[in-house]
């Protein structure tokens, strides 16, 4: 069974410039991989930064440097948040390799993160997605910041996803796929950033 939320686009076959990194749950404990999230996000951001250099020829040198640095920060932030979520919610008992992919197009950057989740996480996650898609994201963002600050540590606060939408104008969509018997749910989170 396949369920999608938001405007999920299938990107197959892979076209253009893309990069995919896989993370096997059996290779390293979560704690050590946590350090790798930042490294992977940094690598992805630095790798794609090069492709923006030619696009910014109208800008003065100093301004170009600032814009490039901000593009790099944005790619790093989105990649890191997606990786952190994938590592946090990945069902480690299953031999499933979590993946992050980034595809570059003329007008957009598309991030795709795939991981498998525990069955009991599916419903609350889908409820959260529904509120992300149906409520005013800015209001939800501030409501979440406030409730996180006043409450206890909320593992599924969604602040990272909300900040992508509110601070980086990202478009988010999801695909939930049941792939085996007994059912294993694989979630793909897609983040689309328009390139101006």
């Amino acid at each position, binding site marked *: 069974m396949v369920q999608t939320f938001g405007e999920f686009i299938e990107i197959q076959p892979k076209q253009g410039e893309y990069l995919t990194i896989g993370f096997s749950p059996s290779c390293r404990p979560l*704690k050590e991989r*946590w350090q790798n*999230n*930042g490294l992977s996000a940094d690598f992805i951001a630095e790798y794609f930064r090069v492709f923006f250099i030619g696009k910014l020829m109208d800008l003065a040198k100093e301004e170009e440097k*600032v814009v490039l*640095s*901000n593009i790099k*920060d*944005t790619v*790093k*932030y989105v990649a*890191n*948040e997606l990786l*952190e979520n994938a590592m946090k919610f990945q069902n480690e008992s299953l031999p499933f390799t979590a993946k992050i992919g980034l595809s570059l197009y003329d007008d957009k950057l598309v991030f795709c993160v795939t991981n498998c989740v525990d069955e009991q996480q599916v419903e609350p996650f889908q409820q959260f997605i529904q509120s992300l898609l149906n409520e005013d994201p800015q209001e939800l*963002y*501030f409501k979440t*910041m*406030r409730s*996180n*600050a*006043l409450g206890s*540590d909320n*593992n599924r*606060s969604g*602040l*990272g996803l909300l*900040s992508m939408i509110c*601070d980086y104008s990202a478009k988010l969509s999801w695909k939930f796929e049941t792939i085996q018997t007994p059912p294993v749910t694989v979630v793909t989170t897609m983040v689309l950033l328009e390139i101006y």
Partner: protein
Amino acid sequence: MEIRAEKYSVVYDPDNAVVHCNGALLLNGAKEYEPILQLLNAAANGQKDNLTINLCDLKFLNSSGINMVTRFIINVFDVEALDIALTIKGQKKVAWQEKLLKNLQRLAPNLNTMLD
């Protein structure tokens, strides 16, 4: 009072009433950010007039870090209602810092924000 790690440091300078944050903060959830939150709260409680949190040299902050900063701001203004002028300083040319400061000010209108 200071916290120094391989990739970041948070240093409280009580004489100048400033906390300097440096490096990249990519810690795992509220639990790992707790010592930094404690340092910030102690700094705010230790000052009578004002305190500045300088983020200018902070290269990266993940969403758990944003969460920690909002916890601190809410604690100062709403929970403890401390009578100090709190300023968060960032760089104008660093887009994420500008966005963070704008969001924090919306969250706590009495917060001073300064963009260099």
